[in-house]
């Protein structure tokens, strides 16, 4: 070794680890070098490389690992070298390489590009069967500090590769009563709270340094964690032809077969930390992984989850010290199977287990039926197995098939005679007998009357026993109950990963409003300024001076085409064909039932081209509505939704026209007229309307120029004390004029007649229109209720307050506001008719409300036309 620093390090290591310093060693760094940190701190115990580049590597060799700067970091000893194809990566390599989420999926993600690059450098072509050298090693020096975790507040050490369950056993703690029965995720016995997440399967969770474990025990009630950390959980979507669940021999063979047929394959295995939580339509699999939620979209799903060993049901079957054969193998491998553990032969069913907490003896029957007791400290059982098929059953009706032992039908065990049959819920065989006697004799009633099968393992362990019991009592073997997701429990945060609340849209003036101190509110799917802090002042600015408001959220639509007029005649209940360019016409929108679902205005640009507006809330549905009917009527029209493209600012108040003149609009359009003009240098379509009861000019313009236009109007209006108004003020202003807000002052079944808006419908317009038939029929039925104006002295009652008449509810307020200009509260309300007429007064909020004509303000429309 040329580098003296490395050699000195080697000698130091030899002294520390008792190695002969003359032993040859190699020195190298990972690609990328920082991976060496994972060896020291992350439990990395394997590496892999292109076999063609690794033929010198042998088991037993020592290496000094270097960091990015070439400095020595640690010494490792290679313990095994295995050469196999890329496809046949050992299943534990994802974990042993220690990278990413330690899944095999992640291993492939980073190793495929790496191996491709190495192939290229060696003049080889990378393929699935490219040979890879898989090397395992141990850390020799410096000795890694034994990793620890905290269990029930106690710090315990564990060995690399331990599951939490094994770590607990290793430390002398048991994962809870019966907690090492299966160690394969099939029983609820080892459930623990791991890092605040209860109901975690200790047997399937790799022990990681620093983890916090609290033992929970089968059937134990978990406490809601005091700390609910906002752990961001990622989600990702993968697409493939075939998803294979289970990487046992059968699963791998199925995957190989699909690959050989040229299909893309994704393999998932819970031993890799990939737990399939559910099989959904698609088919789509939801998969929990340590790094987040995985959505696997497959054309076909193959379930190769194998079989689980039958769990015993007899007195004492919930004691600690019982093991399935697989669990015994795991513990034995970790050197933790207690001496004195006995093995029962295949199919030998114990009569009972004895012990207090932990097993001390097992009683079986001999050939002549005599009980035999064997003392022991543990019992390994061999009761046969049952398909682990809940995912396959969930996928019934979808392209999901089970293969291997998961698809086999197992024989039912003998009917259980005593003991706990469902460990999750603590249901005993006595409980089954009790509900049977009470008439609950089918599987589903059985389940509901005992809750057996509704716990964490969702019946996986108890189902064969429940069926056996029913078969013995009732004769017929009853089907398994429905398999529903989730097969593996996800946390709420995992389930929510990648899902957002519906977005709330912002106008181009959003930041402008916020800079002005507006309180923004969700309204009709948009953020809108509710108030700038002084609603009354905003109201007064409109009534007495000039004010601007952001109405960009209004729906806006262009319609053109040879059938434009005919189409709109069928859409609107008012005439359209007689509308002249330059005019603005208010219009209701009716559904087929004759009910009002939106309103807006119609403007004609030319013979075959129109501009329409809709309410903020109605805008999102307007385009779909128009397109649907255009198709249904076979109309040749072009439609373009302009809502996002156009901003709109309403300039309103007695001094609005004067302001606009100063802004370049020499002749503001008259009431219900429209004109194209340049305002403050911004091209606008100007609509003269009167929603607020004052002269109002809606300036529709390219949304990119909204902020510029707003600022210019504010500057130009400074001399008039211009101020913006929010939605709260607007709702009050329009109420004084008796204008409805669809959705607030209407119901799902509001006909124009119920709204007192018959004037907006022209049954005689000479065209059929949506809702016309229905209105003709409904109009022959006596009216039952009507929207009316009411006045009350004093403050406004609650919006929604009932109208009372002699104690009976006779309607409800839809909008209310104490009008500063009128000096009393004004209300819109639905009122029941009595003998064909609305009574003159009602009781509202303990006061007398008088029915009055609408509008409350300016009935002649003098102000609005000024």
């Amino acid at each position, binding site marked *: 070794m040329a580098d003296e620093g490395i050699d000195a390090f080697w000698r130091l290591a030899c002294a520390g680890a008792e190695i002969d310093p003359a032993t040859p060693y190699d020195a190298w760094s990972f690609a990328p070098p920082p991976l060496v940190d994972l060896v020291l701190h992350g439990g990395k115990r394997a590496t892999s490389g292109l076999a063609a580049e690794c033929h010198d590597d042998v088991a037993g060799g020592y290496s000094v690992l270097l960091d990015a700067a070439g400095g020595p970091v640690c010494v490792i000893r290679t313990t095994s070298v295995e050469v196999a194809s890329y496809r046949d990566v050992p299943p534990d390599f994802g974990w042993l390489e220690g990278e990413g989420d330690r899944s095999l999926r992640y291993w492939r993600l980073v190793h495929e590009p790496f191996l491709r690059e190495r192939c290229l450098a060696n003049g080889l072509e990378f393929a699935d069967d490219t040979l890879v050298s898989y090397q395992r090693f141990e850390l020799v020096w410096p000795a890694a500090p034994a990793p620890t975790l905290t269990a029930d507040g106690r710090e315990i050490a564990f060995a690399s590769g331990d599951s939490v369950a094994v770590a607990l056993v290793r430390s002398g703690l048991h994962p809870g009563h019966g907690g090492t029965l299966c160690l394969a995720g099939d029983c609820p016995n080892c459930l623990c709270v791991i890092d605040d997440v209860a109901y975690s399967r200790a047997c399937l969770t790799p022990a990681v340094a620093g983890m916090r474990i609290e033992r929970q025990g089968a059937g134990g009630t978990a406490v809601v964690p005091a700390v609910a950390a906002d752990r961001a959980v*990622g*989600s*990702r*979507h*993968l*697409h493939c032809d075939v998803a294979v669940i289970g990487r046992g021999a059968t699963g791998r063979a199925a995957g190989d077969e699909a690959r050989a047929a040229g299909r893309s394959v994704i393999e998932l295995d819970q031993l890799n930390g990939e737990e399939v939580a559910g099989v959904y339509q698609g088919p*789509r699999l939801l998969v929990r992984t340590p790094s987040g939620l995985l*959505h696997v*979209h497959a054309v076909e799903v193959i379930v190769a989850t194998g079989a689980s060993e039958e769990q015993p049901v007899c007195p004492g079957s919930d004691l600690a010290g019982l093991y399935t054969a697989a669990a015994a193998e795991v513990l034995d491998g970790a050197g933790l199977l207690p001496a004195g553990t006995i093995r029962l032969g295949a199919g030998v069913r114990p009569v009972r287990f004895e012990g207090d907490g932990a097993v001390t003896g097992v009683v079986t029957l001999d050939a002549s039926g005599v009980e035999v007791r064997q003392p022991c400290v543990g019992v390994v059982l061999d009761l046969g197995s049952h398909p682990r098929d809940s995912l396959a059953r969930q996928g019934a009706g979808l392209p999901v098939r089970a293969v291997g032992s998961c698809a086999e039908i197992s024989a039912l065990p003998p009917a259980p005679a005593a003991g706990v049959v469902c460990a999750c819920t603590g249901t005993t065989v006595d409980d089954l007998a009790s509900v049977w006697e009470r008439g609950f004799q089918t599987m589903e009633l059985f389940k509901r009357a005992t809750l057996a099968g509704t716990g964490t393992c969702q019946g996986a362990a108890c189902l064969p026993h429940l069926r056996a019991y029913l078969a013995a009592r009732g004769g017929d073997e009853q089907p398994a109950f429905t398999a529903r997701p989730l097969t593996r429990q996800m946390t709420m945060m995992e389930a929510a990963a*990648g*899902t*957002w*609340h*519906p*977005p*709330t*849209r*912002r*106008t*181009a003036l*959003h930041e402008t409003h916020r800079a002005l101190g507006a309180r923004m509110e969700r309204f009709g799917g*948009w953020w809108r300024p509710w108030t700038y802090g002084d609603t009354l002042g905003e109201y007064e600015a409109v009534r007495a001076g000039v004010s601007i408001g952001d109405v960009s959220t209004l729906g806006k639509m*262009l319609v*053109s*085409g*040879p059938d*434009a007029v005919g189409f709109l005649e069928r859409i609107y209940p008012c005439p359209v064909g007689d509308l002249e360019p330059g005019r603005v016409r208010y219009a209701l929108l009716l559904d087929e039932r004759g009910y009002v679902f939106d309103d807006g205005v119609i403007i004609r640009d030319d013979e*075959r*081209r129109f501009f329409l507006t809709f309410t903020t809330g109605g805008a999102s549905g307007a385009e779909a509505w128009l397109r649907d009917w255009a198709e249904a009527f076979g109309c040749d*029209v*072009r*439609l*373009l939704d*302009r*809502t*996002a*493209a*156009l*901003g709109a600012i309403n300039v309103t108040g007695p001094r609005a026209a004067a302001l606009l003149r100063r802004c370049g609009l020499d002749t503001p359009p008259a009431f219900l007229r429209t004109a194209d003009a340049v305002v403050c240098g911004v091209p606008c379509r100007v609509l003269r309307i009167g929603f607020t009861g004052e002269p109002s000019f809606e300036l529709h313009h*390219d*949304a*990119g*120029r909204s902020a510029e236009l707003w600022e210019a109007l504010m500057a130009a209006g400074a001399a008039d004390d211009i101020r913006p108004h929010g939605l709260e003020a607007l709702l009050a202003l329009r109420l004084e004029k008796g204008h409805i807000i669809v959705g607030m002052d209407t119901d799902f079944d509001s006909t124009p007649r119920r709204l007192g808006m018959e004037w907006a419908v022209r049954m005689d317009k000479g065209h059929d229109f949506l809702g016309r038939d229905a209105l003709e029929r409904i109009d022959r039925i006596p009216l039952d209720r009507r929207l009316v104006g009411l006045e009350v002295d004093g403050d406004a009652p609650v919006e929604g307050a009932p109208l009372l008449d002699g104690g009976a509810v006779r309607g409800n307020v839809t909008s209310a506001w104490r009008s500063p200009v009128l000096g009393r509260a004004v209300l819109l309300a639905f009122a029941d008719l009595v003998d064909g007429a609305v009574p003159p007064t009602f009781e509202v909020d303990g006061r007398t409300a008088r029915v009055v004509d609408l509008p409350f303000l300016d009935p002649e429309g003098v102000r609005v036309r000024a």
Partner: protein
Amino acid sequence: MSAPEPIFCTRVVASPAALDALATDAVALRLAPDDLLLVGAVDVRPDDPDAIVCRDDGWALRRMTAAEASALVADHGDWSVPPAGIAQGALAGLPVKLLIDPAGDALLLVPRPYLADAVERLP
């Protein structure tokens, strides 16, 4: 990747045949048979007397590579991106348009009212 920014577009709604016949050098997204979105201010005159051609301020745009676009969709959408051409669909709950060019560049268009949500949700 840059953050999305509001852009000016030109929107052309016309008969499918008129749009098919339209020649332009502009970056073009055919949103539907009768609906074309052109990035930038483009002077086009489709052969349809009822065509609607107007400036469209309704979009924000973000440039990225095709590989970044694929990764973004894998993280936030349940559909996959075609090797080239236009793709439309939901990404993190937002309606987006993607244009992948065969050279490996991609454009992501988000309706301008969702710009702030896009910045938050599509890092």
